[in-house]
Protein backbone atom coordinates (compact mmCIF):
# COMPACT_ATOMS: atom_id res chain seq x y z
CA UNK A 1 0.00 0.00 0.00
CA UNK A 2 1.11 3.52 -0.65
CA UNK A 3 1.40 6.16 2.04
CA UNK A 4 -1.34 8.39 0.62
CA UNK A 5 -4.16 9.52 2.85
CA UNK A 6 -7.32 7.40 2.62
CA UNK A 7 -9.27 10.39 1.26
CA UNK A 8 -6.98 10.62 -1.74
CA UNK A 9 -7.17 6.93 -2.42
CA UNK A 10 -10.98 7.16 -2.26
CA UNK A 11 -11.00 10.08 -4.70
CA UNK A 12 -8.61 8.48 -7.17
CA UNK A 13 -10.32 5.09 -6.93
CA UNK A 14 -13.88 6.28 -7.49
CA UNK A 15 -12.98 9.10 -9.86
CA UNK A 16 -11.28 6.61 -12.16
CA UNK A 17 -13.94 3.95 -11.67
CA UNK A 18 -16.78 6.30 -12.63
CA UNK A 19 -15.20 6.90 -16.04
CA UNK A 20 -15.45 3.16 -16.72
CA UNK A 21 -18.94 2.68 -15.29
CA UNK A 22 -20.76 2.09 -18.57
CA UNK A 23 -24.37 1.27 -17.86
CA UNK A 24 -24.60 3.15 -14.59
CA UNK A 25 -24.13 2.30 -10.95
CA UNK A 26 -25.15 -1.36 -10.94
CA UNK A 27 -22.51 -2.09 -13.57
CA UNK A 28 -19.80 -0.71 -11.31
CA UNK A 29 -20.71 -2.89 -8.31
CA UNK A 30 -18.27 -5.73 -9.15
CA UNK A 31 -15.40 -3.28 -9.41
CA UNK A 32 -16.43 -1.59 -6.14
CA UNK A 33 -16.49 -5.03 -4.51
CA UNK A 34 -13.10 -5.96 -5.95
CA UNK A 35 -11.48 -2.72 -4.78
CA UNK A 36 -13.21 -2.36 -1.40
CA UNK A 37 -13.23 -6.01 -0.28
CA UNK A 38 -10.55 -7.91 -2.18
CA UNK A 39 -7.82 -5.34 -2.89
CA UNK A 40 -7.97 -2.79 -0.06
CA UNK A 41 -9.87 -4.72 2.65
CA UNK A 42 -11.88 -1.62 3.47
CA UNK A 43 -14.92 -3.78 4.26
CA UNK A 44 -15.81 -7.42 4.73
CA UNK A 45 -17.90 -9.29 2.19
CA UNK A 46 -20.84 -9.10 4.59
CA UNK A 47 -20.46 -5.35 5.15
CA UNK A 48 -20.41 -4.82 1.40
CA UNK A 49 -23.62 -6.78 0.96
CA UNK A 50 -25.19 -4.76 3.79
CA UNK A 51 -24.08 -1.51 2.13
CA UNK A 52 -25.70 -2.60 -1.13
CA UNK A 53 -28.93 -3.43 0.70
CA UNK A 54 -28.97 -0.08 2.54
CA UNK A 55 -28.33 1.81 -0.70
CA UNK A 56 -31.20 -0.01 -2.41
CA UNK A 57 -33.56 0.67 0.44
CA UNK A 58 -32.74 4.38 0.78
CA UNK A 59 -34.06 7.17 -1.43
CA UNK A 60 -31.84 8.70 -4.07
CA UNK A 61 -29.69 7.34 -6.87
CA UNK A 62 -28.41 3.83 -6.19
CA UNK A 63 -24.85 4.94 -6.86
CA UNK A 64 -24.79 6.25 -3.29
CA UNK A 65 -23.45 2.91 -2.08
CA UNK A 66 -20.14 4.75 -2.52
CA UNK A 67 -21.17 7.08 0.33
CA UNK A 68 -21.30 4.05 2.62
CA UNK A 69 -17.97 2.71 1.37
CA UNK A 70 -16.41 6.14 1.82
CA UNK A 71 -17.72 6.36 5.37
CA UNK A 72 -16.30 2.95 6.23
CA UNK A 73 -12.88 4.12 5.02
CA UNK A 74 -12.63 7.65 6.39
CA UNK A 75 -15.77 8.75 8.23
CA UNK A 76 -17.90 11.68 7.10
CA UNK A 77 -15.16 13.32 4.98
CA UNK A 78 -14.64 9.97 3.28
CA UNK A 79 -18.36 9.63 2.61
CA UNK A 80 -18.51 13.05 0.93
CA UNK A 81 -15.25 12.60 -0.97
CA UNK A 82 -16.29 9.22 -2.37
CA UNK A 83 -19.70 10.55 -3.44
CA UNK A 84 -18.29 13.57 -5.25
CA UNK A 85 -15.47 11.56 -6.85
CA UNK A 86 -17.97 9.05 -8.22
CA UNK A 87 -20.50 11.63 -9.46
CA UNK A 88 -18.79 14.87 -10.46
CA UNK A 89 -16.25 13.85 -13.16
CA UNK A 90 -18.77 12.03 -15.37
CA UNK A 91 -21.39 14.75 -14.81
CA UNK A 92 -18.92 17.34 -16.10
CA UNK A 93 -18.01 15.05 -18.98
CA UNK A 94 -21.71 14.73 -19.80
CA UNK A 95 -22.05 18.50 -19.69
CA UNK A 96 -19.22 19.04 -22.19
CA UNK A 97 -20.31 16.25 -24.49
CA UNK A 98 -23.89 17.54 -24.53
CA UNK A 99 -22.59 20.95 -25.58
CA UNK A 100 -20.48 19.38 -28.30
CA UNK A 101 -23.32 17.25 -29.63
CA UNK A 102 -26.00 19.87 -29.62
CA UNK A 103 -27.79 17.89 -32.30
CA UNK A 104 -27.13 14.25 -31.41
CA UNK A 105 -29.53 12.98 -34.08
CA UNK A 106 -27.30 14.16 -36.93
CA UNK A 107 -24.50 11.76 -36.10
CA UNK A 108 -24.92 8.00 -36.06
CA UNK A 109 -22.00 7.46 -33.69
CA UNK A 110 -23.90 8.00 -30.43
CA UNK A 111 -26.46 5.40 -31.47
CA UNK A 112 -23.79 3.00 -32.61
CA UNK A 113 -21.71 3.34 -29.45
CA UNK A 114 -24.81 2.95 -27.33
CA UNK A 115 -25.79 -0.25 -29.15
CA UNK A 116 -22.24 -1.56 -28.72
CA UNK A 117 -22.23 -0.87 -24.98
CA UNK A 118 -25.55 -2.59 -24.23
CA UNK A 119 -24.28 -6.21 -24.10
CA UNK A 120 -21.27 -5.12 -22.04
CA UNK A 121 -23.35 -3.35 -19.42
CA UNK A 122 -25.75 -6.29 -19.16
CA UNK A 123 -22.75 -8.58 -18.62
CA UNK A 124 -21.48 -6.23 -15.90
CA UNK A 125 -24.83 -6.15 -14.15
CA UNK A 126 -25.09 -9.94 -14.29
CA UNK A 127 -21.64 -10.08 -12.68
CA UNK A 128 -22.90 -7.73 -9.94
CA UNK A 129 -25.79 -10.09 -9.26
CA UNK A 130 -23.46 -13.09 -9.06
CA UNK A 131 -21.00 -11.41 -6.70
CA UNK A 132 -23.73 -10.11 -4.39
CA UNK A 133 -25.55 -13.45 -4.43
CA UNK A 134 -22.36 -15.23 -3.38
CA UNK A 135 -22.14 -13.14 -0.23
CA UNK A 136 -25.85 -13.03 0.67
CA UNK A 137 -27.39 -16.30 -0.45
CA UNK A 138 -25.64 -18.64 1.96
CA UNK A 139 -28.66 -20.79 2.83
CA UNK A 140 -31.39 -22.53 0.88
CA UNK A 141 -34.00 -20.17 2.36
CA UNK A 142 -31.97 -17.13 1.32
CA UNK A 143 -31.56 -18.51 -2.18
CA UNK A 144 -35.28 -19.18 -2.41
CA UNK A 145 -36.10 -15.64 -1.27
CA UNK A 146 -33.80 -14.17 -3.93
CA UNK A 147 -35.31 -16.41 -6.60
CA UNK A 148 -38.87 -15.51 -5.57
CA UNK A 149 -38.16 -11.78 -5.62
CA UNK A 150 -36.47 -12.15 -9.02
CA UNK A 151 -39.52 -13.91 -10.45
CA UNK A 152 -42.05 -11.53 -8.88
CA UNK A 153 -40.18 -8.44 -10.06
CA UNK A 154 -39.90 -9.94 -13.56
CA UNK A 155 -43.53 -10.86 -14.08
CA UNK A 156 -45.34 -8.14 -12.12
CA UNK A 157 -45.14 -4.39 -11.75
CA UNK A 158 -45.08 -4.41 -7.97
CA UNK A 159 -43.14 -1.54 -6.40
CA UNK A 160 -39.60 -2.82 -5.63
CA UNK A 161 -39.74 -1.14 -2.24
CA UNK A 162 -42.41 -3.61 -1.08
CA UNK A 163 -40.25 -6.55 -2.09
CA UNK A 164 -37.30 -5.11 -0.16
CA UNK A 165 -39.47 -4.55 2.90
CA UNK A 166 -40.88 -8.07 2.62
CA UNK A 167 -37.29 -9.35 2.59
CA UNK A 168 -36.61 -7.32 5.73
CA UNK A 169 -39.66 -8.78 7.48
CA UNK A 170 -38.67 -12.34 6.57
CA UNK A 171 -35.17 -11.62 7.81
CA UNK A 172 -36.53 -10.19 11.04
CA UNK A 173 -38.63 -13.31 11.52
CA UNK A 174 -35.45 -15.33 11.30
CA UNK A 175 -36.49 -17.22 8.20
CA UNK A 176 -33.56 -16.30 5.99
Amino acid at each position, binding site marked *: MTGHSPIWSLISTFGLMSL*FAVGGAAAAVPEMHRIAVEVNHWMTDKQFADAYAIAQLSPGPNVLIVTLIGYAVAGVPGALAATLAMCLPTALLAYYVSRLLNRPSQSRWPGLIQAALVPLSIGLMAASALILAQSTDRSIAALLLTAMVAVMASVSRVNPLWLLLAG*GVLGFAGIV
Partner: protein
Amino acid sequence: MSSGSAPAVQEPDLATTPPSLVALFLAFARMSLAGFGGVLVFARRAIVEQHRWMTADEFNETFALCHFLPGPNIVNLSMVFGSRLRGIAGGVAAFAGLLLPPTLIMTALAIAYARFGDLEVLRRILAGISCAAVGLLIAVVFRMMMPLLKRADPFAVILMLGVFLAIGVLRLPLQAVLLIAIPISIGLTYFLRRKVAA
Protein backbone atom coordinates in the same frame (compact mmCIF):
# COMPACT_ATOMS: atom_id res chain seq x y z
CA MET B 1 -54.10 12.66 -23.22
CA SER B 2 -54.74 16.26 -24.19
CA SER B 3 -58.45 16.45 -24.85
CA GLY B 4 -58.67 20.25 -24.64
CA SER B 5 -58.91 22.52 -27.66
CA ALA B 6 -55.79 22.38 -29.84
CA PRO B 7 -53.46 25.32 -29.36
CA ALA B 8 -53.14 27.63 -32.34
CA VAL B 9 -49.35 27.53 -32.43
CA GLN B 10 -47.27 24.44 -33.09
CA GLU B 11 -44.99 25.15 -30.16
CA PRO B 12 -45.02 22.27 -27.70
CA ASP B 13 -46.87 23.05 -24.54
CA LEU B 14 -43.82 23.89 -22.46
CA ALA B 15 -43.36 26.19 -19.54
CA THR B 16 -42.54 29.63 -20.91
CA THR B 17 -39.88 30.86 -18.50
CA PRO B 18 -36.90 28.77 -17.42
CA PRO B 19 -37.06 27.79 -13.74
CA SER B 20 -34.98 29.59 -11.13
CA LEU B 21 -31.93 27.88 -9.67
CA VAL B 22 -33.77 27.33 -6.40
CA ALA B 23 -36.69 25.75 -8.26
CA LEU B 24 -34.27 23.41 -10.08
CA PHE B 25 -32.56 22.44 -6.83
CA LEU B 26 -35.87 21.77 -5.08
CA ALA B 27 -37.36 19.85 -8.00
CA PHE B 28 -34.37 17.50 -8.19
CA ALA B 29 -34.25 17.13 -4.41
CA ARG B 30 -37.90 16.09 -4.45
CA MET B 31 -37.56 13.55 -7.25
CA SER B 32 -34.43 12.16 -5.63
CA LEU B 33 -36.11 11.65 -2.27
CA ALA B 34 -39.15 10.09 -3.94
CA GLY B 35 -36.96 7.72 -5.93
CA PHE B 36 -36.67 4.60 -3.89
CA GLY B 37 -34.87 2.03 -6.01
CA GLY B 38 -34.24 4.38 -8.92
CA VAL B 39 -34.93 8.01 -9.70
CA LEU B 40 -35.53 7.87 -13.45
CA VAL B 41 -39.27 7.27 -13.33
CA PHE B 42 -39.76 10.21 -10.99
CA ALA B 43 -37.41 12.41 -12.99
CA ARG B 44 -39.39 11.82 -16.15
CA ARG B 45 -42.69 12.49 -14.41
CA ALA B 46 -41.48 15.74 -12.83
CA ILE B 47 -39.59 17.14 -15.83
CA VAL B 48 -41.97 16.21 -18.64
CA GLU B 49 -45.40 15.99 -17.06
CA GLN B 50 -45.42 18.11 -13.92
CA HIS B 51 -43.13 21.06 -14.71
CA ARG B 52 -43.16 20.75 -18.53
CA TRP B 53 -39.55 21.80 -18.75
CA MET B 54 -38.95 19.41 -21.66
CA THR B 55 -40.99 17.48 -24.21
CA ALA B 56 -40.96 13.68 -23.99
CA ASP B 57 -38.71 13.51 -27.06
CA GLU B 58 -36.23 15.98 -25.63
CA PHE B 59 -36.17 13.99 -22.43
CA ASN B 60 -35.49 10.71 -24.27
CA GLU B 61 -32.73 12.33 -26.28
CA THR B 62 -31.09 13.76 -23.18
CA PHE B 63 -31.40 10.45 -21.38
CA ALA B 64 -29.94 8.51 -24.31
CA LEU B 65 -26.92 10.79 -24.26
CA CYS B 66 -26.46 10.29 -20.53
CA HIS B 67 -26.93 6.57 -20.88
CA PHE B 68 -24.14 6.06 -23.35
CA LEU B 69 -21.73 8.15 -21.32
CA PRO B 70 -20.10 6.48 -18.32
CA GLY B 71 -21.14 7.13 -14.74
CA PRO B 72 -24.44 7.18 -12.90
CA ASN B 73 -27.00 8.04 -15.60
CA ILE B 74 -29.39 10.03 -13.50
CA VAL B 75 -26.56 12.15 -12.06
CA ASN B 76 -25.33 12.90 -15.57
CA LEU B 77 -28.90 13.72 -16.55
CA SER B 78 -29.27 16.26 -13.75
CA MET B 79 -26.16 18.13 -14.88
CA VAL B 80 -27.03 18.08 -18.60
CA PHE B 81 -30.65 18.94 -18.00
CA GLY B 82 -29.98 21.79 -15.56
CA SER B 83 -27.36 23.29 -17.85
CA ARG B 84 -29.69 23.19 -20.85
CA LEU B 85 -32.17 25.32 -18.94
CA ARG B 86 -29.93 27.66 -16.96
CA GLY B 87 -26.31 27.16 -18.06
CA ILE B 88 -23.63 25.65 -15.85
CA ALA B 89 -25.15 27.19 -12.70
CA GLY B 90 -28.41 25.38 -13.47
CA GLY B 91 -26.46 22.17 -13.96
CA VAL B 92 -24.80 22.54 -10.58
CA ALA B 93 -28.13 23.39 -8.90
CA ALA B 94 -29.81 20.26 -10.30
CA PHE B 95 -26.76 18.11 -9.50
CA ALA B 96 -26.67 19.39 -5.91
CA GLY B 97 -30.42 18.98 -5.48
CA LEU B 98 -30.23 15.38 -6.69
CA LEU B 99 -27.28 14.40 -4.51
CA LEU B 100 -27.20 16.51 -1.36
CA PRO B 101 -30.32 15.28 0.50
CA PRO B 102 -29.81 11.54 -0.14
CA THR B 103 -26.09 11.83 0.61
CA LEU B 104 -26.90 13.32 4.01
CA ILE B 105 -29.42 10.53 4.66
CA MET B 106 -26.91 7.91 3.55
CA THR B 107 -24.22 9.39 5.80
CA ALA B 108 -26.61 9.25 8.75
CA LEU B 109 -27.37 5.61 7.90
CA ALA B 110 -23.64 4.87 7.66
CA ILE B 111 -23.12 6.30 11.15
CA ALA B 112 -26.05 4.25 12.46
CA TYR B 113 -24.70 1.11 10.77
CA ALA B 114 -21.24 1.62 12.27
CA ARG B 115 -22.82 1.83 15.73
CA PHE B 116 -25.58 -0.74 15.54
CA GLY B 117 -24.61 -2.90 12.57
CA ASP B 118 -23.61 -5.76 14.82
CA LEU B 119 -26.97 -5.98 16.57
CA GLU B 120 -28.42 -9.41 15.94
CA VAL B 121 -31.87 -8.16 14.94
CA LEU B 122 -30.46 -5.62 12.47
CA ARG B 123 -28.18 -8.27 10.99
CA ARG B 124 -31.19 -10.48 10.31
CA ILE B 125 -33.24 -7.69 8.76
CA LEU B 126 -30.37 -6.60 6.52
CA ALA B 127 -29.76 -10.19 5.47
CA GLY B 128 -33.37 -10.45 4.32
CA ILE B 129 -33.24 -7.12 2.50
CA SER B 130 -29.97 -8.13 0.81
CA CYS B 131 -31.53 -11.30 -0.55
CA ALA B 132 -34.45 -9.32 -1.95
CA ALA B 133 -32.13 -6.66 -3.41
CA VAL B 134 -30.17 -9.31 -5.29
CA GLY B 135 -33.44 -10.72 -6.59
CA LEU B 136 -34.43 -7.29 -7.90
CA LEU B 137 -31.09 -6.94 -9.66
CA ILE B 138 -31.51 -10.36 -11.29
CA ALA B 139 -34.94 -9.27 -12.53
CA VAL B 140 -33.48 -6.11 -14.09
CA VAL B 141 -30.70 -8.08 -15.78
CA PHE B 142 -33.25 -10.56 -17.07
CA ARG B 143 -35.48 -7.84 -18.48
CA MET B 144 -32.57 -6.14 -20.22
CA MET B 145 -31.31 -9.42 -21.61
CA MET B 146 -34.58 -10.44 -23.26
CA PRO B 147 -34.33 -8.23 -26.40
CA LEU B 148 -30.77 -9.45 -26.92
CA LEU B 149 -31.82 -13.10 -26.70
CA LYS B 150 -34.88 -12.52 -28.90
CA ARG B 151 -32.75 -11.02 -31.65
CA ALA B 152 -30.52 -14.09 -31.36
CA ASP B 153 -27.51 -11.90 -32.00
CA PRO B 154 -24.60 -14.30 -31.36
CA PHE B 155 -21.91 -11.61 -31.06
CA ALA B 156 -23.83 -9.61 -28.47
CA VAL B 157 -24.54 -12.73 -26.42
CA ILE B 158 -20.91 -13.85 -26.57
CA LEU B 159 -19.69 -10.39 -25.55
CA MET B 160 -22.18 -10.29 -22.69
CA LEU B 161 -21.09 -13.73 -21.45
CA GLY B 162 -17.44 -12.82 -21.87
CA VAL B 163 -17.78 -9.71 -19.71
CA PHE B 164 -19.82 -11.66 -17.16
CA LEU B 165 -17.15 -14.36 -16.88
CA ALA B 166 -14.22 -11.94 -16.82
CA ILE B 167 -15.71 -9.69 -14.13
CA GLY B 168 -18.05 -11.96 -12.18
CA VAL B 169 -16.11 -15.24 -12.15
CA LEU B 170 -12.47 -14.39 -12.86
CA ARG B 171 -12.75 -11.04 -11.00
CA LEU B 172 -10.50 -9.22 -13.43
CA PRO B 173 -10.13 -5.42 -13.11
CA LEU B 174 -12.90 -3.45 -14.82
CA GLN B 175 -10.61 -1.11 -16.74
CA ALA B 176 -8.60 -3.94 -18.31
CA VAL B 177 -11.71 -5.85 -19.36
CA LEU B 178 -13.47 -2.81 -20.83
CA LEU B 179 -10.40 -1.51 -22.64
CA ILE B 180 -10.49 -4.77 -24.59
CA ALA B 181 -14.25 -5.33 -24.78
CA ILE B 182 -15.35 -1.83 -25.83
CA PRO B 183 -13.23 -1.61 -29.03
CA ILE B 184 -14.24 -5.15 -30.00
CA SER B 185 -17.93 -4.39 -29.47
CA ILE B 186 -17.84 -1.06 -31.30
CA GLY B 187 -15.90 -2.61 -34.19
CA LEU B 188 -18.30 -5.53 -34.49
CA THR B 189 -21.37 -3.30 -34.29
CA TYR B 190 -19.91 -1.01 -36.94
CA PHE B 191 -19.15 -3.82 -39.41
CA LEU B 192 -22.43 -5.64 -38.80
CA ARG B 193 -24.40 -2.45 -39.45
CA ARG B 194 -22.42 -1.78 -42.61
CA LYS B 195 -23.09 -5.30 -43.81
CA VAL B 196 -26.80 -4.85 -43.19
CA ALA B 197 -26.81 -1.51 -44.99
CA ALA B 198 -24.88 -2.88 -48.00
